[in-house]
């Protein structure tokens, strides 16, 4: 009986996890983290007189929000890791132990 229950619960758990994955993949439902409605007006970036990188970036924004999204989502964690590693390096340079925490209490 217990095994049967465990099996059912495992199925339910996989269903919930699978369902969540599906929700994640549905862009129409993607309203999390900050939420709220955003006006549907179209904003076009003015690329005149921008330097090379910024001009490419603004053009990417104007041409395709899909590519813009893909590049943004790749760049943010990448830059986070780079900056985090640099800051880590300087913290270690001070001589702090960045691997252990001695205090153990609630």
């Amino acid at each position, binding site marked *: 009986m217990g095994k049967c229950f*465990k099996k059912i*619960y*495992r199925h339910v*758990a996989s269903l*919930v996890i699978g*369902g*969540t994955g599906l*929700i*994640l993949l549905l*862009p129409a*439902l*993607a*309203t*999390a*983290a*900050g*939420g*709220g*409605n*955003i006006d549907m007006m*179209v*904003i076009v*970036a*003015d690329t005149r007189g*921008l330097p090379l990188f*910024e*001009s490419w*970036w*603004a053009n990417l*924004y104007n041409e395709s*929000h*899909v590519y*813009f*999204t893909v590049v*943004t*989502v790749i760049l*943010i*964690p990448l*830059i*986070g*890791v780079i*900056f*985090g590693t*640099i*800051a*880590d390096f300087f*913290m270690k340079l*001070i*001589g*702090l*132990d*960045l*691997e*252990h*925490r*001695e*205090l*153990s*209490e*609630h």
Partner: protein
Amino acid sequence: MEWLYVLMPIAGVKIFWPGLIILGIGVGVIGGFFGMGGAWMVTPGLNILGFPMAFAIGTDIAHMAGKSLISTMRHGKFGNVDYKLGFIMLVGTIVGFEIGAQMVMWMERLGNVEKVVRYIYLVLLVLIAWMVFHDVLKKRQKDRAAIKAGKEVDALSTGIEWHKTLHKLKIPPMVHLNVAGIYCSAWLPIFVSFLTGWLAGILGIGGGLIRMPALIYFIGCPTHVAVGTDLFEVMISGLYGAATYSFKGRIELVAAIIMLMGAAIGAQIGSVATKYIKGYGIRIAFGLAVIGCALSILMKFIGKWYPAYGTLMDDSATVLILGLVSALSLYIILAFIKGAKAELARKNVTA
């Protein structure tokens, strides 16, 4: 002084970049210390720096994802992140958030929802502040009683112990959350995250402010693990939000990158500072931050009730939020410096 301003290619406005770095440091310190995204601090800050509101929220979320990643990396190395718990909670958070967001849209069709949302937010913040300080007082009472009885004060004791009752619910499947040191039904974190996600969806916030105390008081996480695990959640929801907002064209990546430069330093300071401050110290500081946040909302309410003081109250609320960010950042930075000095001194003695 033209060099102090940088042109945002998408929004088309020139922004004072040292202001972005300072904001990044402040919110990085607080986020890394308390385990939250801090949208309630950044959005008004960005707005003051001259960002159009349409871009302020998206840019904030984009930087939040990167900043939380840095903090999660650091907390992960300290052993403060329970990834298993984080993944389980992600299920409830996302489902709850979607339902909350859909409910807001449904309520919007019925009438003015903004007022109701603000009331709920205010009540919730008061409740969280009460929970934190009630817990602190109870813990002090217990410690005093132990000293009176001639016993040693238990470092692992807590004031509020609701989680112990909740752990008695043995609904399978049961899970061992080794980092948090918890054995409970998997449905407990799923249900708690669903509830916090639902509230975050209704309130239109990231949810760190609600999830951190929920992890402590309902699931029973030690404070440091609650901070680390919450940051892991914020990182994933931030990335998800960044994808959403960039798809809608409301992100200014240049500003997010500049803020990340400051946040990288701030997040490291905030995360490492948790090494030197006891769990209850973090809880008290968190409680004060919640009180400040509640007061700022109350000021906005007063501005609405008495329109003659509307501008004054709105400005005062912004000043309060920014003052709170500065004061808390200063407290954490000083704790970090003091702790680091003591650690280096100890190292020198043993060397």
